[in-house]
């Protein structure tokens, strides 16, 4: 289609994106349109304020963390490539892809998805979810429903359940293990991104 091709030509390195993320060109065009809609000042980059303009994201309990996940550490803007790469985490896994140990882990595999979720907790990026980080997340999710002591008890119980090496924090392996019976591919996939 004409508009697709013209839009495609505007995006640099489309083939690389398709290879890396597994999106079809049609999807990439759709995401590019969305990117442009968010980028009100047409700078080609998104800043945190642009994300904040999305109303429903602003009232999401962990909205700020989600926004933060798009920005690599140290960077203040997101370009289109990074935008697409992060969103590629939410593609449903390809069942037909053969397991090729030489290739890097695909972006939408179960492990990558789990890593993404883990990073939402682990803001200081030390590879562990400490009690304080867990408390922060719980507080924002449960808001005004519970008292501080209840929150602490819940956090304690959570850590106690998952923590196998008794370091009072949840590492990525423990995180992965606690979710081993959950169908992450189902829970962390967005339909239209197939």
């Amino acid at each position, binding site marked *: 289609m004409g508009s697709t091709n013209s839009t495609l030509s505007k995006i640099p390195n489309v083939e690389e994106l398709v290879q890396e993320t597994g999106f079809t060109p049609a999807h990439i065009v759709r*995401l590019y349109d*969305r990117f442009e*809609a968010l980028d009100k000042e047409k700078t080609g980059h998104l800043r945190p304020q642009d*994300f904040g303009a*999305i109303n*429903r*994201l602003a009232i*999401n*309990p*962990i*909205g700020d963390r*989600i926004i933060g996940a798009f920005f690599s550490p140290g960077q203040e803007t997101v370009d289109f490539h990074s935008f697409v790469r992060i*969103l590629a985490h*939410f593609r*449903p896994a390809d069942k037909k892809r053969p397991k090729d140990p030489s290739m890097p882990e695909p972006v939408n595999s179960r492990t990558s998805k789990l890593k993404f*979720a883990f990073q*939402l*907790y682990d803001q200081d990026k030390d590879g562990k979810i400490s009690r304080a980080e867990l408390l922060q*997340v*719980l507080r924002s*999710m*449960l808001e005004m*429903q*519970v*008292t501080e*002591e*209840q929150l*602490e*008890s*819940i956090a*304690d*119980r*959570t850590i*106690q*359940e*998952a923590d196998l090496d008794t370091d009072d924090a949840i590492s990525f392996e423990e*995180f992965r293990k*606690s*979710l081993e*019976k*959950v*169908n*992450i*591919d*189902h*829970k*962390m*996939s*967005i*339909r*239209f*991104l197939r």
Partner: protein
Amino acid sequence: AQPLSEWAFTRHRLYFLTIGLVLLNLPCGSYTEIPPKPPGTVTVLPPVTPAEGPQAFPDAENSNLPVFTMNYARIQVPFEVTLWVLLASFAKIGFHVYHKITFWVPESCLLISIGLMVGAIMHSVHEEPPAVLSYNVFFLFMLPPIVLESGYFIPTRPFFENVGTVLWFAVVGTLWNSIGIGMSLYAVCQIEAFEVQDINLQENMLFAAIISAVDPVAVLSVFEDVSVNEQLYIVVFGECLFNDAVTVVLYNMFNFVAEMPEVEPVDVFLGVARFFVVGLGGMGFGVIFGFVASFTTRFTSNVREIEPLFIFMYSYLAYLVAELFSISSIMAIVTCALTMKYYVEENVSQRSCTTIRHVVKMLGTISETLIFFFLGVVTITTEHEWNWGYIMFTLLLALVWRGLGVLVLTQIINPFRTIPFNFKDQFILGYGGLRGAISFALVFTLPDSIGRKKLFVTTTICMIMFTVFIQGISIRPLIEFINVRRTNRNLETINVEIHSRLIEHTIAGVEDLCGQWSHYYWKDKFLKFNNRILRKILIRDNRAESSIVALYKKLELQNAMEILDTVSGDINAGSSIVSLQYVYPLSHSSACFLSLSLSLSRSLSLACSLSLACSLSLSFSLSLLLAFSLSLSLSLSLSLSVSFCGLVTLSVSLSLCPPGCLSYTSFHIVHPSSLTHYPFNLNRSDGYLRNPEGFGLGSIYQG
């Protein structure tokens, strides 16, 4: 050798009991349940028996006071009902003596077999079985409990996530099946060799409408024990419940049409309009009654004993009112249960909650048992007309059309699903389409103007037997053989719950980012509406409770019960569960488990427990404090609790714990009225605890 002979002895006793009961039931056949039989049914006139029981001293001339009298006629009907129910239940007990059998053969098959035997006995002595599967008795008394049970225990969250697929299969799938089977059967009828040319198109379509509907009773009894993955389960489950609307419409439409010489296009449009009335009307009635029931339970804090009654009465009312208007009563009662459950379980006391769940399950099980049992009995005692061609083709066509239907429909709906169905899922979906008693009851009530009614009855019975026996028995090995994705029902950890919620929020956020609507949007909207308006009206004590907190409380309670049950002698474990201690006003109603902390220390040689209970209120609220102090060293703990008018409870606990003592505990339960009924032997946390499911909790299968 010892237990073996004991077991054999028990078996023999069971046999005698069963045979005794059967013999006892024999003379009862002719008088039970005399509903107005639809004209022209095939029952044989019962032999004449004396109208009353034997007279005492029939030829006594003098009028002495009779010492011993018998008046059977007075108690006859309830007595026979009870005996039949007992007989079916004994059969059920009997199966479970052999563990292996119930694993491989679903109970429905076993019950039908026993029913067949009983039917054979009754037939040989020319007795009539009670008319349990007649139209009125079946649809008014036997079916509602089962459907209520299914509706009450539906896992709501997966259901709402898959509601589109469920409705798609229920509506379009059933239509596809009916029309396909009807047309093909008509084509088959044209073949001269089978001698069924007198069945015209309308009659074929009517028959097809009856047998194409997947039956909830049969499906649930088979799928309950087989744990397929959640998506598959909920689609099969939902389909069989919601195809009732289509069946009702088609049945009525074709019934109406079969008596008319020709069909007009207007009738087809009216049929479609009627479908919407039936379906949406059913759901609407259900929702209305559900809300009314929830609203009523808001005010029942002083009449706890009759709380469960409201649930049953309102659901049954929903069913009956729907029947009154000839709209889909099954959908009405299912939606009523769905709506009611969430709000009612927050309003009623813990005991009422347990009672409701238990009674719903019990009634459902009894109904199901009786239905299958009588299916067997009636098979023998009705008159049959056998026609090889028609019956074989019906079986074949039903399978073929269902398979085709599933394939085509899945292809269309897969792009809309997050997890598409693969071929294995589709196979089980098609194979799991069992027919059951509803078809049978419907075929029995066909008008007699249809000449080949007996043939239809026979074919339906064959269909039911085939699907229940052959498909029902083989589905478990097949599932294991083709390795369908299974489910793990044991997902209740606080970690999973918290992380799942986080993921949900993430997905909702990312979807907003991409400017995409999905069902999370609707879910969010509904939850807001729910919290702001509905909960305020329908729930007495309106504190929004996150599913995380609810699950946490439930898990703590379970742990507490487990630990209390195992406190004895040498306990080595040193696990500690952290305590929650908080105080806020409690209303009378909610069985709120305030705080629990328990820890055991090693070497429990001296268990010294000090408990002090003190209550200062008019409303008999007790606060119970148990302090376990254990260890070899000394530890002293003193607790005092005071409650004011049952509303606020304050507890203060002081513990002196010298080094060496590992931990101390304090244990508080506060609940105004049911404290004595926090049975410490409630060690089975199998879902009979009030399950704070709500819309946010992961799928927790009950039981």
